[in-house]
């Protein structure tokens, strides 16, 4: 272990950690480009490098890329990467209030803490966590998806019916494309480019960034920051210690949850961010304040998505199973250096494994340091006159969608922009649409696979302890606010003469 850590701290390796962090921050902050694209694009560049610097470069690029999407999410409501979607929902309200520095500072600090907590788990309980991940079958994934959806009522507390409709729209949109089980085409209307499903990044850029610009244009509301806002400096980007202290349980809970979701193959950091956000809404004494700019709503997804990104390394390294899209591409980085991820990696190349663990810890500190500089640079844009900013956002929305796919991706972006505009005009919340879109494929395919395995006996799913426990928690999450509402209504009625 010590040898591995020393290896991570050598100048050759350290330089690549810094380079990977900088490229990851840049890629993550640009819509349409993310850590997965970065790793795939730069894979050939590392042929000539030794295995440890090459792997460190990619791991740091990955960790930094997961965080950086939050910068544009908070400042412009453009999620630079899918992992930053809940941060866009909550964090942009801080920019509108002129408190972008606080949200950005909390985001970067909580990301780093989440990543570090997950790294401690990497060092200590990797084999045990990998065995937990293996316990998850289709029925458990289905229950996990339902648990994620159970927060709809909370994130749309003012009007749960609208929240449910918005989530159903998201779930339905997630069924577009080729059915994973039968291979049938669904709701494609002859457009071949959506056979793989709705492209998520262009959809989110449209739903949040472009729709916001169109809304302001339609209302001639050309002020992004009310009252001008405070200038973001290094000092303001470091959140007050008391704020962090107040968030300690949020960060710890979300990091652990993020880590656990991260180790599940296919679940990913986006799901982790959504689940942690919903858990935080549930545990808050002011659930109605979420979605309007509550700092816990930034801290929770940020801690969770970075912890999940690190957690995804656990099944990769210990079992050779990628936990996310980026780790699937990372397998290529291992293979081109003649390394086979899996149990034998721990036996044959323990120094590489521990150097990677150490490198991940260092990366999280580097992300914290470099992000503050990045944040300052990006924060200047908020102070631009809104017409210039809006023009930039619309251009980036189109270019980001083009970078992700083709003209059809831009069409998807525009369609989602108009959908977001219509929903917001009718006061439907957007967050449940995202929940449905992300969790839909997990819920549908897991439910159908689980039903196939149990000969269509739904009750057999409940016989599995993890499934039953997760569904019970989901039921509790739905029932408690409903019962509390009924009690409040009954008390109010009793007090009325």
């Amino acid at each position, binding site marked *: 272990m010590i040898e591995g850590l020393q290896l991570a701290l050598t100048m050759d390796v350290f330089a690549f950690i810094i380079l990977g962090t900088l490229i990851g921050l840049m890629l993550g902050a640009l819509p349409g480009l993310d850590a997965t694209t970065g790793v795939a*694009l730069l894979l050939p560049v590392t042929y000539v490098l030794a295995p440890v610097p090459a792997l460190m470069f990619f791991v740091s690029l990955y960790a930094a890329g997961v965080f950086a999407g939050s910068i544009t999410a908070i400042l412009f409501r453009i999620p630079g990467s899918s992992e930053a979607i809940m941060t866009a929902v909550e964090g942009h309200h801080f920019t509108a209030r002129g408190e972008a520095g606080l949200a950005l500072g909390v985001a970067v600090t909580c990301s780093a803490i989440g990543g570090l907590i997950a790294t401690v788990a990497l060092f200590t309980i990797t084999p045990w966590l990998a065995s937990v991940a293996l316990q998850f079958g289709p029925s458990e994934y289905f229950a996990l998806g339902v648990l994620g959806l159970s927060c709809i009522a909370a994130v749309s507390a003012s009007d749960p019916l609208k929240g449910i409709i918005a989530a159903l729209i998201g779930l339905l949109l997630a069924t577009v494309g080729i*059915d994973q089980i*039968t291979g049938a*085409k669904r709701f494609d209307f002859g457009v071949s480019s959506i056979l793989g499903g709705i492209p998520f990044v262009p959809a989110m850029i449209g739903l949040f960034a472009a729709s916001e610009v169109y809304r302001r244009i339609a209302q001639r509301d050309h002020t992004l920051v009310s009252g001008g806002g405070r200038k973001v400096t290094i000092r303001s980007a470091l959140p007050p210690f008391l704020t962090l202290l107040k968030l300690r349980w949020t960060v710890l809970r979300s990091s652990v949850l993020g880590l656990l979701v991260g180790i599940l193959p296919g679940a990913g950091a986006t799901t982790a961010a959504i689940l942690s956000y919903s858990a935080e809404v549930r545990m808050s004494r002011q659930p109605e304040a979420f979605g309007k700019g509550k700092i816990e709503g930034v801290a929770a997804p940020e801690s969770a998505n970075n912890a999940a990104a690190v957690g995804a390394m656990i099944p990769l390294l210990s079992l050779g199973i990628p936990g996310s899209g980026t780790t699937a591409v990372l397998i290529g980085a291992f293979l081109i250096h003649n390394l086979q991820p899996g149990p034998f990696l721990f036996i044959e190349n323990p120094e590489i494994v521990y150097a990677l663990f150490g490198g991940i810890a260092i990366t999280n500190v580097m992300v914290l340091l470099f992000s503050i500089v990045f944040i300052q640079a990006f924060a200047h844009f908020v102070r631009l006159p809104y*017409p210039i900013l809006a023009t930039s956002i*619309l251009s980036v929305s189109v270019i980001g969608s083009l970078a992700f796919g083709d003209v059809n991706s831009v069409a998807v972006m525009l369609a989602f922009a108009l959908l977001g505009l219509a929903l917001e005009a009718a006061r439907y919340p957007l967050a449940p649409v995202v929940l449905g879109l992300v969790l839909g494929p997990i819920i549908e395919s897991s439910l*159908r696979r689980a039903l196939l395995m149990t000969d269509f006996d739904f009750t057999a799913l409940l016989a599995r302890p993890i499934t039953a426990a997760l569904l019970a928690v989901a039921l509790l999450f739905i029932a408690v606010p409903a019962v509390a509402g009924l009690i409040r209504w009954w008390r109010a009625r009793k007090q009325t003469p």
Partner: protein
Amino acid sequence: MRYRWLVPAGLFLAAAYLWGVAADFQGAVGRYELIGPDFFPKILLAAIMIASLAAVARDVVALRREPAGEETKTFFPADLAIAVLITVAYVAALHVIGFVLATLCFQALILAAVFRVRRWQIVFGVPAVLTTLFFVIFIVLMGVPLPRGSGMFRAFNSLLY
């Protein structure tokens, strides 16, 4: 809001139409027939129809109880339509005149037509700076293959990237 029931009513109609589309999904055989490709979409569409009807009913009832003239923000549909049309034209122009010229024109048009900026220095200067910035970030640094256009525009853009 007087017309708020229109959104759930539209959703109900869309869901009813999509139910018909889902009924034609092919591909399930044998054991898969019970959980075929239409299994999950139909559950969702049924739920959307029920929830939409409930929302329409609620909105209509609320409309009767609410006092008139509760509107809050003024809406300028012409501004929105112009912005969306310029964006659609931009996307269409990308494959004809290429990224650089299309982006310059798009930004200048948005500033002039949507935001009514009249200072020519801004209408032409800002797009020049922004397009150069995006060109450097997306094409030079990231190597994103953005459209070069066709014909003589392609020849011109090939000189740049």
